[in-house]
């Protein structure tokens, strides 16, 4: 299912909105839950059992851990400091068992549905065995809802979050229809108050939600689907094209991916906004990043935060890594020690990040490519600063920042090429041609696109760029728009709707981009 389909937007979403308007406030969350499960069952049928099992596992383990916290607090009320420590430790280990079992339970499903075949493939390669590769269909959004489930249960374990007693809210947290398929990977803290509001569908919410959905449709139908014409040919038969054309394909694919995924997030956030539910943002103008680290704090933000909170810090501050860091701090330097701690944690983050995107070697390479870039960035940062100071190059000038943005973008294009390539042979083949056969005068622009397509693309990209620049300057574009006269507002809405209808790349001759992140 795609959030861009008429089935979702016109039939599903609109029906829910109408029913929601006439539903009493106290039943609104229940309605959203029923709608979410209806959609899930429509797509994944009996696999809904796995969503239910995940939900029940985190609901009950959180309650159990909460119960242990209360019991512990009672016990430590009237004891000495030493006894307090012992009691705390006793309860912590009990809670740890519950946490580990819950994590294993949920990760086991994810492993079975997403990684079992890949694991068998690796075993077959190493041991020349013949383990049967099964045809497994995963429950819709399992990669996304599992991460949300884990974040909730870990937060309750850490007492960062209280266990939720209302099971409807936990069920909704995992299954809420706008976020089930492609995120954002919101934490429970991000959404619990939003669910509590049970807001009405106001004129403001409806208009803002629809605006956001329209903008997402524009990015997807006018830009992403049009670029797909070029991209699919290049990645299928790259050997017929020059290095510069392949590089253009990598640029186009990166733009396509951004427009498709951020466009989906516009539809997702817009859908939720209609019901007065504000979801966390997943993008913050990523192509204005000055280094790869910054890029990943602006691209798929909620996934990056998840890895930072639940992998990066726990790994870098784990006992063995801390021991090593103390040793290095005393023997070498503070910087070397923190670099090593960071490198170990980054390695874990990017191994898992690559694998999360998909069970395949190209995804692993995609992860390690970013690991190496970020690590090199961390290592050479002081050297670059020193060199700039020596050469009296100011790092605050616009031209320096612009060059940093260009450098980062080129590195991102290469990363996304690896990401999109069918397998490692294709990825390396394409990279080889880019580096050995790069001839800018031999660039073929006319693969699947004609001059009219390019004119539409340039205008559409300028619109997105201007909106991005305004957002980067902290302007709330939609709020500003809402202050304009009603005639101007409606001219803009109509221009957007007519623009999508006329210039959308759909119909005969076009192949729409499949929901890319929904497969992860």
């Amino acid at each position: 299912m795609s959030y861009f389909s008429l089935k979702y937007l016109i039939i599903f979403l609109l029906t829910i909105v109408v029913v929601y308007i006439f539903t009493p406030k106290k039943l609104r969350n229940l309605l959203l839950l029923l709608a979410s499960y209806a959609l899930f069952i429509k797509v994944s049928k009996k696999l809904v059992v796995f969503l239910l099992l995940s939900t029940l596992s985190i609901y009950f383990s959180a309650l159990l851990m909460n119960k242990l916290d209360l019991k512990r607090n009672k016990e430590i009320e009237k004891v000495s400091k030493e006894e307090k420590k012992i009691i705390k430790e006793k309860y912590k280990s009990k809670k740890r068992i519950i946490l580990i079992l819950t994590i294993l339970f949920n990760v086991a499903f994810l492993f079975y549905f997403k990684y079992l075949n890949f694991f068998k493939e690796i075993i077959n390669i190493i041991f020349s065995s013949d383990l049967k590769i099964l045809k497994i269909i995963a429950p819709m959004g399992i990669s996304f809802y599992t991460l949300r489930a884990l974040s909730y249960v870990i937060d309750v374990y850490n007492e960062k979050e209280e266990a939720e007693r209302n099971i409807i809210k936990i069920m909704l947290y995992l299954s809420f229809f706008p976020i089930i398929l492609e995120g954002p990977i919101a934490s429970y803290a991000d959404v619990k108050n939003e669910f509590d509001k049970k807001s009405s569908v106001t004129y403001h919410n409806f208009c803002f939600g629809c605006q956001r959905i329209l903008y997402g449709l524009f990015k997807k139908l006018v830009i992403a689907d049009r670029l797909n014409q070029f991209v699919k040919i290049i990645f299928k038969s790259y050997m017929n094209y020059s290095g510069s054309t392949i590089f253009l394909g990598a640029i186009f694919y990166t733009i396509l991916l951004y427009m498709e995924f951020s466009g989906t997030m516009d539809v997702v956030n817009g859908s939720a906004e209609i019901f007065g539910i504000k979801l966390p943002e997943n993008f913050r103008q990523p192509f204005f990043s000055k280094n790869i680290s910054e890029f990943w704090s602006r691209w798929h933000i909620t996934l990056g935060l998840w890895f930072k909170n639940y992998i990066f810090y726990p790994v870098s501050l784990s006992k063995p890594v801390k021991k090593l860091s103390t040793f290095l701090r005393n023997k070498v330097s503070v910087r070397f020690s923190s670099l090593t701690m960071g490198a170990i944690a980054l390695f874990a983050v990017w191994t898992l990040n690559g694998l999360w995107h998909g069970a395949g070697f190209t995804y692993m390479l995609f992860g390690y490519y970013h690991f190496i870039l970020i690590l090199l960035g961390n290592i050479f940062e002081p050297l670059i600063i020193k060199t700039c100071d020596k050469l009296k190059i100011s790092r605050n000038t616009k031209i320096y920042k612009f060059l940093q943005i260009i450098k980062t973008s080129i590195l991102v294009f290469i990363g996304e090429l690896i990401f999109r390539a069918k397998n490692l042979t294709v990825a390396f083949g394409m990279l080889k041609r880019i580096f050995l056969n790069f001839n800018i005068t031999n660039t073929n622009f006319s693969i699947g696109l004609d001059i009219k397509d390019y004119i539409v693309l340039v205008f559409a990209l300028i619109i997105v760029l201007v909106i991005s620049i305004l957002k980067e300057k902290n302007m709330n574009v939609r709020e500003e728009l809402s202050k304009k006269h009603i005639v101007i507002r409606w001219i803009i809405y109509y221009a957007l709707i007519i623009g999508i209808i006329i210039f959308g790349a759909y119909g005969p001759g076009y192949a729409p981009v499949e929901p890319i992140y929904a497969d992860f």
Partner: protein
Amino acid sequence: MEKLIEILEGLNPEVDYKTCEDLVDGRHLDSLTILALISEIEENFDVMIPTVEIIPDNFNSAKKIWKLIERLEDDN
């Protein structure tokens, strides 16, 4: 507090820690600097900073970091 400012200046001297209120949100302290800062704090103040405390709100200013250290000292 002075010791803390000294540590922070050692990690990134380009910030005025007495006034800066967005050390994390303004990207003055990145993840790696936070790791180095945690090591230094744990070494110098004899506290242990659990991962659950590593949130922007605890690290956005020198005052907030100092409050965190005091709270962890009390817990100990």
